[in-house]
């Protein structure tokens, strides 16, 4: 027996000429919250749907709980209902003709649970999610936050080995989303349920996950813990999700880590690299010191965002983002310093 509950090997899925998922390989450990992050169109939802059995991959192997669910070479493709998973989609998809109670009971009934057991499970799960009052209401009588809780309750009720989440918080407003992250993580961890969690919000993934995989253009580019993925500045598309500044430069001295931005701005980068010629520089807005330093810049725009200012700066031909507590005048020339800058291939 492997320590992994889900193993995906070389999974690919095409839609016509579009390669939605290319050669995806990863394992998910029992009890792990495993997130798939990427911009829209990166293939993350398709990958999730392949695992749930809603889409049929073109190639690859999916093993769940030591049982082969899909194997393109052996012609195995277990239908979704026989995979033993639960699912919380982005829209929550509560069946509008069923009361909350019946929505939650559905998976239990389909899997042949006896009536007494179903009642017990409904009680347990509705208590855990604080929705006992809502059991006799219809979905359209619920607020967004309540609907989301019911969708999670419905997924938890059969005590599945794996829950598939497809951006389940993206339809909530900011405050509710923050709150939902906390209780969702708590309940998944308390019940030791494995979750495969698709989101485009990297901060949500950082908060919730044990491990995060970053997908781009159908390919898995990184699988890391939240701490480590934040350090992966070598993938510009990932860096963009974190809001890093990414600008074009030319490496002029590889030994000293010197790069030229535009015509005259020289910058020293600290990471060991073997990039020559055209390159990309990656640095966080918080890594820019404004008001002193050796690099000339111009303040284009200043916005107060609570506690500090967010600045748009013109550096040669580039516009970069910086944050500072110091108020400075819009339109003024200033000096800046970039405390940490990573160089990567263009």
């Amino acid at each position, binding site marked *: 027996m492997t320590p992994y509950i889900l193993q995906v090997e070389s999974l690919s899925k095409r839609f016509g000429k579009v390669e939605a998922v290319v050669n995806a390989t990863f394992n998910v450990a029992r009890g792990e919250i495993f997130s798939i992050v990427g911009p829209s169109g990166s293939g993350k939802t398709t990958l999730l749907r392949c695992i749930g059995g809603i889409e*049929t991959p073109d190639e690859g192997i999916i093993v769940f709980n030591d049982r082969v669910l899909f194997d393109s070479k052996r012609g195995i493709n277990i*239908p979704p*209902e026989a995979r033993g998973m639960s699912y919380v*989609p982005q*829209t929550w*998809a509560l*069946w509008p003709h069923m009361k909350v109670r019946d929505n939650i009971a*559905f998976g239990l009934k*389909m899997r042949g649970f006896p009536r007494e057991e179903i009642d017990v499970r409904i009680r347990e799960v509705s208590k855990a999610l604080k929705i006992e009052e809502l059991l006799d209401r219809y979905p359209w009588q619920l607020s967004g936050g309540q609907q989301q809780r019911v969708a999670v309750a419905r997924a938890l009720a059969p005590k599945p080995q794996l829950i598939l989440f497809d951006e389940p918080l993206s339809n909530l407003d900011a405050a509710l989303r923050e709150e939902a992250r906390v209780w969702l993580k708590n309940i998944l961890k308390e019940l030791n349920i494995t979750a495969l969690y698709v989101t485009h919000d990297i901060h949500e993934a950082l908060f919730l996950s044990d491990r995060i995989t970053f997908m781009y253009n159908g390919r898995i580019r990184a699988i890391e813990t939240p701490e480590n993925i934040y350090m992966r500045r070598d993938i510009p598309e990932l860096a963009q999700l974190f809001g890093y500044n990414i600008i074009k430069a030319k490496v002029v001295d590889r030994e000293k880590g010197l790069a030229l931005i535009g015509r005259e701005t020289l910058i020293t980068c600290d990471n060991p690299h073997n990039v020559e010629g055209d390159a990309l520089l990656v640095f966080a807005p918080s890594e820019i010191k404004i008001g002193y330093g050796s690099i000339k810049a111009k303040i284009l725009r200043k916005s107060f965002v609570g506690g500090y200012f967010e600045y748009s700066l013109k550096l040669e031909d580039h516009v970069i983002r910086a944050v500072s507590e110091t108020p400075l005048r819009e339109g003024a020339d200033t000096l800046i310093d970039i405390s940490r800058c990573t160089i990567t291939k263009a």
Partner: protein
Amino acid sequence: MLDRLIVFIALAVASLSLILTGLIYVQAVNAHPLYSYKLDVTLDVVVEVIGSPDFRATLMNTVVVAVLQTLVGVVLGLVIALAIHRVDVPFIGRFEPLIIMPMFIAPVIWGFAWNYSYGPSGFIPLLSEFNPFIVGVICGLLHVPHAYALIASGILSMDYTLEEVARIHGAGPLRTLARVTIPMLRPSITLATVLLLILGFEQFGIPLVLLSPWGYDVLTTYLYGIPSTYFMNPYPRMAVVAGTLITITISLVILQRYLALREIKRFVTIGERYRGYFKMSVSTPVKAVFAATTLLYIVGVVIIPLASLILRSIQPLYGAGIHEFTAEYYLTIIRYESYRATLINTFIVALLAATLGSLIYFSYAWTIVKSPRRPISVYADLLSSMPRALPGLVAGLAFLWFYLLTPLRPLMYTHLGLALAYVIIWSALGARLVTSSLLQISQELENVARIHGASLARTIIHIYVPLLKKSILISWLYLFILGIREYSIPVYIATKNTQVIGSTIVLLIGSGDLGIIAALSTITVIASLTLTALIFKIGWKPY
């Protein structure tokens, strides 16, 4: 297992419409009747028919009727759709069922209704004769509902903020209508135009009643008349005429599909439905014009002809003014076994067709919308518009040959055989009806059910059926009404034991038994109207 059965049904229906079309073309170039199993390929009949002056005159008449029907139908349909859905004419929306109603009554009955009302011997003899131009206009008036439904749907799915912006930017109501609303409706107007052209070429009932007695033919009536002129082996000749007709209609259906796809891409703002939130405030004279057009339509095109039909069914003498009343025709219908059987057959066949149709169209639509195998869904989808190009009369003829050629022959003599023909021939409409209902249900509702352990059958039973309850009932009723209304399909395939009201009326035309025709028509009209009122009450909308 179930998904295979569903796909099988869909493919069978799709392929059958292809086979029916193929049979017509094969018969057109075969010197022997198809059911003789002899093949002797020749173009002689094709050349002879197409070269004859009769045929050319017929083709010309058909074009006149189709083009006039389209012009009149689309323009009036647009005006009435704007009156009901965009301009603030008070209370006019309540008359919508009366505008839609002509759809639910067979054209052959409309032919009689117009003859009894405005014909030379009618109650209000406005028309001294009938010719292709007059009949084209009448056909256009009676096909307003088809154009109306498409255009109204366009209006309702249009983002009304487009018009609001025009108003705020300085355009008056009429300019907004002319410069924003109507141009934005171009996709639905184009589709309505092509649809009405197709229906114009297919028109059988109205020309049969109003044109044939005056010595004019259109392609359908010409086809219908062939067996009485050519007793010996009329089939190749009939197939050439039918083939010409479906070549035109198939081209138009392909055009319709192409335009639909192209226009949808162009008018990207058309998306979500913003039903009925916006009415344009116009001046009183403009309101009056819209209101008068709509009311005139209802009274002149619908109420007076139908009232004349009913009046005719209780008049002992025709053309002599209203002096006496009689129930004789109705009593005759009740007295005679064959008429009674016709009423019962109509009911049974409509019942079977509605039920069988609901099941088959569900499979068909499911395959189009949901089949994971793209070639299958594309095949079903492409062929789903095929029957649209088969006029009822031609399709009935093709079905006759199909039954005669295959082991299904015994079915031909049963109610089920007739109902099956209805279902296959209506499948373009049926598939669309169910497809739109299926598309209303988010795919995720099904996905969650499947992942939570429900098989396809249980997903259909627990999720789709309860959610679509009302749509299923409405579709069933709609098909049932179509079943009562059908007159052209059974012309060739109804046998002695399965004759229905529609085909009986067509057969009676030669006999001149006008009182019985009026009484049978009145019975159908009353049944259709009752059911139409019911379907509206339940919440059916023509768009």
